[in-house]
């Protein structure tokens, strides 16, 4: 059991479903309340793709637009999502399931999988 790898989220149930705007606004307005509600939870987020970002080690992130042009919902994707994302382009709507880790500049989620 100790050696069990971190599981993917493809089959995980989302605790909450909301838009990228709603998620960012909640954290921006009341970070401690948002932390209490969403931190470590699996969330389904819907939003418009602002950009795709490929990190230095080849990791894919999907950046979802919010009402604030400077800040986003920034979702680090699971490694097995590198093919699926090519079906999308900037400006498209997308639904992603991921684990919420809090707000830094952006609201950051990790282990993301695209919900079809």
């Amino acid at each position: 059991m100790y050696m069990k790898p971190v599981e993917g989220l493809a089959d995980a149930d989302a605790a909450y479903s909301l838009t990228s705007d709603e998620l960012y606004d909640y954290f921006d307005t009341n970070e401690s309340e948002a932390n209490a509600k969403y931190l470590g939870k699996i969330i389904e987020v819907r939003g418009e793709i602002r950009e795709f970002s490929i990190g230095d080690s080849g990791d894919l992130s999907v950046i979802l637009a919010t009402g604030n042009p400077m800040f986003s919902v920034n979702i680090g994707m699971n490694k097995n999502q590198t093919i699926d994302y090519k079906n999308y382009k900037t400006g498209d709507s997308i639904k992603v399931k991921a684990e919420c880790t809090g707000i830094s500049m952006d609201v950051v989620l990790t282990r993301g999988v695209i919900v079809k």
Partner: protein
Amino acid sequence: MKKLIYLCAVILFVTSVAQAQTQYYTKEGKVKFVSKAPMEQIEGVNKKVTSILDIATGQIEFSVLMKAFEFEKALMQEHFNENYVESDKFPKATFKGSIQNNSDVKWTVDGTYPVKVSGKMTLHGVTKEISASGTIEIKNGKISATSAFSLVIKDFDIVIPSVVKDKIAESVSVEVNLNYELFTSK
């Protein structure tokens, strides 16, 4: 009077542009820590570190979301968050400091510059003064920064139960990699 207002507006605009051009940021910085104990090696990687750097003053800040550390094994991640850093209670680690030898870095000239950074790190609700050596690399105008240092975990009131002391090191090594972008309002 209108001329005076116009002049003030121009001065404010020029000042804000000049200030913005000294500020760099990243939202995709990487921090990795490694605990090497006799019985086990544990690695956690966070690829969503936020950092702001002002090259005019050498001021540098980090914000590290603790739940964004990823581990190979599920129980390592669970123990890290629940038992050690208590990430529900202390969701962020932060650093606020400055490059001590900022004047040695020629920010507009490609090159590799050794730097020393000092400041206050807050982790697990405890704030400590820390210093670390690092390297600034400037290549084609792009700024990147690396650093490696050690942290003694009990300095941050993180308690390791004696039953797992052979599995978790008292001091963990930390590596930081950052690729900065010029801060511009899009």
